[in-house]
């Protein structure tokens, strides 16, 4: 059974590598570019073959470094898969999953490289003109471009092969698990988590949203920022599935880009909170004494800061300092993260304080185990479940804070979309009352995302809490 999966995954991987010979970018009146064209001409200008025989010469400057990286990862994965099918080696299977994941991440990074048009995913279209003294100058140009079949197929095939390999791996792990009677706390928690239907639904929604938001734009024919007043405020239909906004931009496309922002903010903020909070909380809890006292006073100060007012004032500061719309997002992450860490610090400190009193810590002390080992082997593994649960729930809070800030016009700024600032369309009373397709989808997206995150967080809390055992 697993062998069948593996061979299928191997075939899919081969197909996905062959995608590179298919068109990645299509242009109106010009010949398409394949993936191989894009990576063999990195940072060089390719002259586009003119099909309409117009006088203009367009060139394409490829910046597809990540695309090359994706190909390398895919080839490594292919090698690993061949190795694992021949020798039935579990380690190479794990490595294959990781390399395909790396390939997908680097492809996703390539797709975030966009400023105005779809062509920006892979590079820039330039119009070449001759100047007076015979030199050739290049100007940015906007001809109609769309992603080709290769770029789209690559995503689907990669995801499918990864799902298949992961499936094979899970089956193998499950067989091993049901054979042995060894139960680690982690496997018990995992079991408890899998039995929680809501948590599984939540996890599935999150994975789906990540795939949709990061890889979805490659399937869209509309660009993120290009406005077209002729198609403004169109209702949902065949052309634009969710309609268009006040400037004629496709709402579904903007939703996907906005989702990238919201999800990234959620994860980055929480990583920040963990880094600062767990470090400070851990130090305070472990060393105690005056250091603890001092650090906890700082935590008290931060906890007494009124969150929303301070965030809003900082948002206004950003507007006044003329932070560019692209950069604002980083400041938003920083602001929410810096205001959120004290909760994490207090939690970790409390956990460490109670763990220090446990008998096994006394035993560790009596055995004369080194400080480093006590922290690394006895304390940290016991704090991690608390951190995971708190962090998951904090992702939801961070997404909500960002959307509120952007909704008030103080977070991510137009024309770059975030789910929060897309709801801002309600400021136009007519849009609010009559054209609900403009502002309801982003609101629902926020809700669904945060709900899914909370389902998972709730499930994790139950899974790690021994008292919740059924």
């Amino acid at each position, binding site marked *: 059974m697993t062998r069948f999966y593996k061979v299928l995954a191997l075939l899919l991987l081969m197909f996905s590598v062959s995608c590179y010979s298919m068109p990645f970018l299509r242009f109106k009146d010009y010949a398409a570019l394949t993936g191989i064209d894009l990576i063999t001409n990195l940072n060089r200008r390719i002259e586009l073959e003119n099909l309409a025989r117009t006088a203009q010469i367009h060139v394409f400057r490829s910046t597809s470094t990540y695309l090359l990286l994706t190909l390398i990862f895919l080839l490594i994965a292919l090698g690993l898969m061949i190795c694992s099918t021949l020798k039935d080696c579990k380690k190479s299977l794990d490595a294959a999953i990781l390399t395909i994941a790396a390939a997908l991440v680097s492809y996703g990074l390539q797709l975030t490289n966009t400023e105005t048009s779809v062509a920006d995913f892979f590079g820039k279209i330039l119009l070449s003109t001759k100047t007076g003294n015979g030199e050739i100058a290049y100007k940015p140009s906007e001809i109609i471009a769309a992603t080709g079949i290769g770029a789209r197929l690559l995503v689907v095939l990669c995801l499918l092969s990864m799902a298949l390999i992961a499936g094979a791996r899970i089956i193998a792990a499950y067989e091993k698990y049901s054979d042995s009677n060894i139960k680690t706390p982690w496997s018990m928690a995992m079991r408890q988590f899998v039995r929680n239907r809501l948590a599984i639904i939540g996890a599935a929604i999150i994975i789906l949203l990540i795939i949709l938001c990061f890889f979805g734009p490659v399937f869209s024919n509309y660009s993120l920022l290009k406005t077209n007043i002729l198609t403004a405020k169109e209702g949902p239909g065949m052309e634009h599935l969710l309609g268009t906004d006040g400037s004629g931009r496709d709402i579904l496309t903007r939703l996907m880009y906005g989702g990238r922002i919201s999800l990234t903010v959620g994860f980055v903020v929480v990583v920040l909170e963990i880094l600062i909070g767990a470090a400070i909380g851990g130090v305070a809890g472990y060393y105690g004494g005056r250091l603890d006292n001092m650090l906890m*006073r700082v935590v008290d100060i931060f906890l007494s800061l009124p969150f929303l*007012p301070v965030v*809003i004032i900082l948002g206004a*500061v950003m507007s006044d300092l003329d932070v560019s719309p692209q950069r604002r997002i980083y400041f938003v992450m920083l602001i929410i993260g810096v205001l959120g860490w004290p909760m994490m610090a207090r939690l970790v400190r409390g956990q460490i304080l109670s763990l220090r009193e446990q008998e096994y810590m006394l035993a560790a002390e009596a055995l004369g185990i080194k400080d480093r080992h006590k922290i690394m082997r006895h304390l940290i593994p016991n704090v991690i479940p608390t951190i995971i649960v708190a962090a998951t729930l904090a992702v939801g809070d961070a997404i909500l804070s960002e959307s509120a800030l952007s909704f008030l016009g103080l977070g991510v700024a137009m024309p770059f979309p975030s789910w929060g600032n897309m709801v801002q369309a309600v400021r136009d009373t007519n849009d*609010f009352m009559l054209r*609900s397709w403009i502002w309801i989808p982003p609101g629902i997206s926020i809700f669904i995302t945060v709900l899914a995150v909370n389902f998972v967080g709730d499930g994790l809390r139950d899974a790690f809490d021994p008292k919740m055992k059924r």
Partner: protein
Amino acid sequence: MWNYIVRRILQMIPIIIGVSLIIFFIITLIPGNFIDARAQGSHMTFEQVNHLKELYGVNEPIHIKYLKWIKGAVKFDFGDSFTHQAPVSKVIDTFVWNSFTIAAIAFLLELLIAIPIGIICATRQYSKLDYFFTIIALVGISLPSFFLGLILIKFFAVDLKILPLAGLDTPGSNYTGFQFLFDRLKHVILPAFVLAFISIGSMMRYTRTAVLEIIRQDYIRTARAKGLSEKVVIYKHALRNALIPIVTLIGLSLPALFAGAIITESIFGIPGIGKIALDAVSKRDYPLLMGFSMFVAVLTLAGNLLSDILYAIVDPRVKLK
């Protein structure tokens, strides 16, 4: 007890100073000032502008400004609001009661709904009902307040036209007595519902956990073993102890009651302290912002203290030292 309270209040002083320093620093980060913003487009002469700047002390260095502010703050004088042309404390006092009305209704709704449901969920753990309310609770926690507010306005005010769009009273109406109350209630019901719904979830979960914790204890087993009816076991023996942690939540809700809800109030156009604060941000009214932020910070600290005191009152095992 009194010793404890006095000591806690003394401990708050460095925290309040720290908070005020941070907020003051952030506010001074904002370039430009109120006077310049006002002067643009108006017919003020250069001399007038300078005179005003001197009057409001705009050009002084930061530490002088801060010392001046804290000197006044000790005497509950937080300076004058630029936009309202009145002392900050008076502005807060004027608008905070609008916020309080809504928050109080929301809080009552929350208590009345969340606690009974939390108890029911705990007594029937893992039943269908428990699942249902767990989902409802998580939905409440996950809804962005601005979106919930907008959807409710769209549905009840725009489509069904049974509730007003915004504000606290029907403009131009001179209702008195019962009519006034009814009109006010119609305006207040939606924002109060939004506030209640987004916070009901956490209180429901909290109650559920508290009751579950108690139900597993030995004395409950004893009560059951004695042959007491389930009703008596739950409502007489378990509930009393389960309510202890819930009572502390009331103390912690102090800021929610008085600090206003910035987003909900601005969505519903309610002249509460939250909306005033948001307007103050866009108009760069620093004294009001500073005063408001400190007001919320003090409320938070007072709420923590209140919850600790309540804990000691309800639970005789807890001794405040």
